[in-house]
C-alpha cells in the first residue's frame, strides 16, 4: 500500500442507519484505499460489509462522517453521485443482468446512453470485454440462456465497459454452483493485473490469499481488523476474527 499518495476512497468517521428500522449498520468506519489496491472484505452476515461497498457508489446513503471517492465527496449533491458512478463499476451477487436485453445490449447500454459513444464503437469495445471474460460467442444470447457462471462473467464485462477506476464486487460467487465459482474467480484474478482499484466482499479465502493486498474483517458494523492476507490468516489479532476464521476454515 502506497501510504504517501492521496487515497482514491476514504471513509472518515462514517456512520449509517437503515431508514426503515433505525438499525445502526455502519459504526465509526475509518478506512483508506489506495489507487490500484486490491482489498477483500469479509465478516459474518449482517456485519455491514455489503452496505460498506454499496456506499461507495451511492447505492446507500450515510448519515454521519464523510466518504470521498476519487476527490468527490458523496453527499446529497446529485452531481457528485453521477460523477462517481461513471468511475465505479459494480458486480452483484445476483448478477442483475437485464433479462429482456441480449448480452451485447446489456454491455452497450451505458456506453451509448450515458457516455454517448457511437453504437459501432460501443459494440467493438464491448466485444473486447466479452473476449476478456471468454464469453464472446454468446454475445447475442439472452442472459437467462446462460449458466450462472457465464452470467456473472457477462456482469463483470458490463461493469468493465464503463472503464471504471474502481471495481466493487458484492459476493460475486455466492449465488453460483461450486463448479462455476472457479471460472468467475479466474476472470477476477486476471483483472487484478489491470491496475484498477478492486474491493471485493467474499468468503473465498483462497482468492484473498492469492490476490489481495489487504483483508478487512468486519463485524457488527465495525472494522474489527485489517491486515495483509498472510498476517490476517496466520495470526489474527482479535478473538472475533480468530473465532470467525476457525468457523470458515474449520473443515
Amino acid at each position, binding site marked *: 500500500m502506497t501510504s504517501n499518495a492521496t487515497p482514491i476512497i476514504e471513509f472518515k468517521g462514517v456512520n449509517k442507519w437503515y431508514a426503515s428500522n433505525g438499525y445502526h449498520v455502519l459504526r465509526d468506519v475509518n478506512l483508506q484505499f489506495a489507487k490500484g489496491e486490491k482489498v477483500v472484505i469479509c465478516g459474518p452476515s449482517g456485519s455491514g460489509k455489503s452496505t460498506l461497498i454499496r456506499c461507495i457508489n451511492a447505492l446507500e446513503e450515510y448519515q454521519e462522517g464523510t466518504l470521498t471517492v476519487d476527490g468527490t465527496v458523496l453527499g446529497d449533491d446529485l452531481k457528485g453521485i453521477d460523477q462517481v458512478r461513471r468511475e465505479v463499476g459494480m458486480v452483484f451477487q445476483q448478477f442483475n443482468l*437485464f433479462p*429482456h436485453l441480449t448480452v451485447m445490449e446489456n454491455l452497450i447500454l451505458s456506453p451509448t446512453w450515458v457516455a454517448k459513444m457511437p453504437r459501432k464503437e460501443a459494440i467493438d469495445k464491448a466485444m473486447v470485454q466479452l473476449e476478456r471474460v471468454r464469453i464472446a460467442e454468446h454475445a447475442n444470447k439472452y442472459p437467462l440462456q446462460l449458466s450462472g457462471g457465464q452470467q456473472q462473467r457477462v456482469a463483470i464485462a458490463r461493469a468493465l465497459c464503463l472503464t471504471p477506476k474502481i471495481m466493487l464486487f458484492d459476493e460475486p460467487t455466492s449465488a453460483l454452483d461450486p463448479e462455476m465459482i472457479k471460472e468467475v474467480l479466474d476472470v477476477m484474478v486476471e483483472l487484478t493485473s489491470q491496475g484498477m482499484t478492486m474491493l471485493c466482499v467474499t468468503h473465498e479465502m483462497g482468492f484473498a490469499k492469492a490476490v489481495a493486498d489487504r483483508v478487512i474483517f468486519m463485524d457488527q458494523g465495525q472494522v474489527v481488523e485489517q491486515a495483509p492476507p498472510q498476517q490476517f490468516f496466520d495470526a489474527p489479532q482479535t478473538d472475533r476474527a480468530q473465532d470467525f476464521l476457525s468457523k470458515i476454515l474449520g473443515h
Partner: protein
Amino acid sequence: MHVFKSIEARPMPGQSAGPLAWLRVNLFSSTSNSVMTLLLLALGVWTLMSSMDWALVHAVFGANLQACNDVRGVGACWGVITEKGRLIVMGRYPEAEHWRPVIATALMLGVVVISCMPRFWNKALPLIWALMLVVYFILMKGGLMGLTEVDTDQWGGFPLTVMLTVISMTLAFPLAIFVALGRRSNMPAIKTLCTLYVELIRGVPLITVLFMASFMLPLFMPEGVKIDVLVRVVVGITLFSAAYMAEVIRGGLQALPKGQTEAAATLGLTYWQTQRMIVLPQALATVVPSIMNTFIGLFKDTSLVTIVSLYELTGALGLALNSDADWRPFKIEAYLFITFIYFAFCFAMSRYSLWIEERTAVSKVR
C-alpha cells in the same frame, strides 16, 4: 478406474398418439365416464339443433314485418337487422353522410392495427397517428372542404364506440404509466397526488364520472367557455380507466427485483432512462393480460355514454328499436347482432394479448 458412461435419453413411456387413443383416455376411460360423455354429447346436439331451428330453419331474413310476426317464438327475425342495421351501426349520424364515418373508422382501425405490429414501432408512428386524427375529425365533423358540418352530438353507433375506445385507450395508457410511477415516487407530493387520484376515481362508478364530466364540469367553467360533450366524455373515460390501469401497472413494477434498478443506477442511467429501458419493458410485459383486461373493459364501458345522450352501438340499438313499435319485439335478434360485433372485437383483442405475451416471453426463455 471406472469411466462415466451416459445413458441415452428416450421418450417418456405410455404416450400413445392418435385421436382414437386420445378419445379412450380422455372421454371413455370408464363406464361412468362413457355414459357422461354420451349424455353431454346428446345435450349438445339437442341444443345446437333447436337453436339452429330458431336461428336458421324457421328464420326470416328479409325485412318483412308480416312474416316476422308470423314466426314469433319459433324462428328468428333477422329482418330487423336488414331494416334497422344501418341505424344501429351508425346511430344518429345523417344518413346521406354515412360514407364519412365508414371511411374515418376504417382509417382509425387501420392505424390501430398497424400500431399493434412491432415492426411499425418507429418514429413515424406518432406522425401517422397525428395525421389520422386530423383526417378523422375533418371527415367526421365536416364544415371544411365542402363537407356538411355534423355536430358531435349527432355522432353515434359503432364509429362512436371505436372512437371513444381508441382515443381513451391511447390517452389512458401513458397516463396510467405516469400515475403508477408517481405512486412509487420518493417525492411525497407526487406520491400523495397520484394515490389520491387513484383512490378517488376507483371509489366512484363510471356512470357517476360521466355524469359529473358532462353536467357538473360546465358549471365550473368560466362564462362563455364551452367544452364539447365528446371531449368531456373522453376525459371521463380516460381518467376512469387510467386509475385502474395504473394499479395494474404498479403491480408489474412491484414484481421487478430491486437489483434491476440498482444495476441501472450503477451504470449511470438516469431515472427516466432506467424506467424507459429497464423497468417498464419488463414490468409491462408481466402485466399484459391484466392491461388487456382493462382495455376490453373500457371498450364495453363506452356503452355507458348513453347516460349523457350519446348513442354509441348499444345506445343506437335502443334508439332504433324503442322508437318503432313494429320492430320493437325483435330486440333479441338485434342484441345478438351487436353481441357478435362486441365479441369479434374483444376476441381479437384477447388473441392479440396472447400473441404479444408469447412474443415478450421469447426474450426471457426461462
